[in-house]
C-alpha cells in the first residue's frame, strides 16, 4: 500500500431492524419488577395502581371463587356468536361485491356509508329491537365485524390477478370452479388479515356493550370493580382481556401458517 491508498469505508450499515425475543422478555420482566418495587416502596399508590402481584392475586381469587369463569363464558359466548354471524355474512357479501357488478354497484356505496359509524352507537337501538339480553350485544358485535370483513374480502378478491382468472377461463373452468379454485384461495390471505382486524373490533365492542347493559362479562366486571374502587379486580379484568386478544391473534396466526404454507 502506498501512502495515497485508502480502504473504502463501509457505509451500508443500520436500517435493518431485527427481532430478538429474549430482549422483549427481559424488558417485560424489568417493567414488572420495577412496578412491584415501586408499589412496595410506596412510591406508587396501591389504590390507584395496584402492584403486579396484587393483580395476579385478584385473578387467582376470581378464578378460585368461580366468578371469573362466569364472566369469561358470557363474554366469550357473545364474541364467538357475534363474530361468526358477522364474519360469515361479511364473507358472502364481500365475495358478491368482489364478483358481481350488480352487488358491487348496490353494496359498495351502502358499505362505505355505514362503515364509519361507531357501531356501539347502535346498541341502544338494538336493545329496543332485540331486548337487553344477549341478542342486542351479539348484533352489535356482528355489525361491527361485518363491515371490516366485507371490505377486506372484496379488496382481497380484487387483488387476485385477473390473469389467473383468464387462465382458468382459457382452460374451460366453470364460473363456480373459478370462484372456489382461483378467487377464494387467492383471496384467503386478505380475508385472514381482515379476520384479525375483525377480532380486535369484536373485543372492543363486547367490553363496550357489557359496560352499557350487562351483569356478567369481563366488561361488566371491570365497570363494577371501578365503581367499588376495587382497582386490583379492575386491572385483573384488563389483563384477562389482553390475554383474550393474544389468544385470538395466536389462533389466527396458527391458522395462517397452516393455510398459507404456499407463501
Amino acid at each position: 500500500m502506498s501512502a495515497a491508498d485508502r480502504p473504502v469505508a463501509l457505509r451500508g450499515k443500520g436500517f435493518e431492524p431485527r427481532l430478538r425475543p429474549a430482549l422483549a422478555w427481559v424488558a417485560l420482566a424489568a417493567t414488572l419488577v420495577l412496578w412491584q418495587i415501586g408499589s412496595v416502596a410506596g412510591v406508587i399508590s396501591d389504590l390507584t395502581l395496584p402492584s403486579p402481584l396484587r393483580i395476579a392475586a385478584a385473578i387467582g381469587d376470581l378464578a378460585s371463587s368461580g366468578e371469573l369463569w362466569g364472566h369469561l363464558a358470557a363474554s366469550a359466548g357473545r364474541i364467538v356468536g357475534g363474530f361468526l354471524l358477522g364474519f360469515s355474512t361479511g364473507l358472502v357479501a364481500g365475495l358478491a361485491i368482489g364478483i358481481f357488478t350488480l352487488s358491487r354497484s348496490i353494496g359498495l356505496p351502502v358499505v362505505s356509508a355505514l362503515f364509519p359509524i361507531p357501531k356501539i352507537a347502535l346498541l341502544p337501538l338494538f336493545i329496543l329491537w332485540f331486548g337487553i339480553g344477549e341478542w342486542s350485544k351479539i348484533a352489535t358485535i356482528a355489525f361491527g365485524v361485518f363491515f371490516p370483513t366485507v371490505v377486506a374480502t372484496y379488496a382481497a378478491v380484487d387483488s387476485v390477478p385477473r390473469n389467473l382468472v383468464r387462465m382458468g377461463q382459457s382452460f374451460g373452468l366453470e364460473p363456480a370452479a373459478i370462484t372456489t379454485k382461483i378467487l377464494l384461495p387467492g383471496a384467503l390471505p386478505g380475508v385472514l388479515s381482515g379476520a384479525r382486524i375483525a377480532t380486535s373490533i369484536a373485543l372492543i365492542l363486547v367490553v363496550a356493550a357489557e359496560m352499557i347493559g350487562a351483569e356478567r362479562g369481563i366488561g361488566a366486571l371491570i365497570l363494577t370493580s371501578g365503581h367499588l374502587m376495587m382497582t386490583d379486580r379492575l386491572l385483573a379484568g384488563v389483563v384477562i382481556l389482553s390475554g383474550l386478544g393474544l389468544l385470538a391473534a395466536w389462533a389466527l396466526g396458527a391458522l395462517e401458517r397452516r393455510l398459507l404454507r404456499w407463501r
Partner: protein
Amino acid sequence: MQIEARGLTHHYGGLAVLDGLSFTVGDGRVLAVIGPSGCGKSTLLRILGGLLAPTAGEVITRGEPPAGCLNPITYVFQDFALLPWRTVAGNVELPLEANGLAHPRLGWGGLAHPRLGWGGLAHPRLGWGGLDIATRRDRVRDALARCGLEEFTAAFPRQLSGGMQQRVGIARALVVRPAILLMDEPLSALDSQTRDLLKEDLLRLWRETSATTVYVTHNLSEAAELADEILVLSRRPGRESARIPIDLPREARRRGEPLVVEVEDRLWSLLRSEATLAAREVTA
C-alpha cells in the same frame, strides 16, 4: 386442426389496436407473430383464444381435434399464471378439472366430501362423464415427464426458477392434448440462457405433439428459430406488413444457422423503422 382469423379488428375505446387481420395457420404449423410493442399482439392472441370478443371479424377452427384431446385450444402465458397455492402437479392438473372429474381431495369446486370424493356431486355441465382418477394421474405424469418436471411434482411455484415455472405452464397447456397452442411471449420473462434451453424443448415438444401453434413474440431470434412462418405486424393499429415462410426442418433449427440469421436480418430491416416510431409514441 387449423385456425383461421378473418378480418380481425379491435378497438379499446377509441384506440384501434388491430385492423382487419386475416391469416390461416395450417395443421401442425407454427406461426410466429412479431411486431413493435403495442401493435396488438397479445390482443390478437386473446381473441384467438376466445378470451376477448373482437370489435369485428371472427376466428374459425377447422378440422377435428386429435384423439384424446380434452380442450382444443390452450394457452401459455408470459407471466406463467401459475396458482401459487398449488404444487407443480396441482397446477398441471387444473385443466383436467374442467373435464368432468373432481379433484381427488377437493371435489369439483371444493364441494365434494373429502373421503367420499365427489359422491353425489357430479360436474354441473358434464355430469358423470369424464376421466377417471387413474387416467388423470397418467395424463399429469406424462405432461410433467415431457417437460422434464418429474422431480418437482410436489414443489410450489415460488420454489422454482422462472424457466421451471414456464415449463409448468407448458405442461399445463399440454396435459389436455390440445390441437391448438397459443403462446403469449412465453420466453420473454426469462433470461437469455434459460430462453435458449426452452427453445430446444419447444422444438422437441412440437415434433412430439404436432400442435398447431400461434407464437406471439417481440424477439426476432425466437421467431426465426422456432416458426414455420412469421407474420410481421405494423405499428398500432396492427396490420399485416409482411409474411415470411421459413423452410427449414425442426431438426435443423439452431442458433447461428445461416437461414435463421438471414431471416433475423430481414425481420430487423422490416421492423427497425416501425420500432423506432413505436418507441416514440405517447399513449393518451
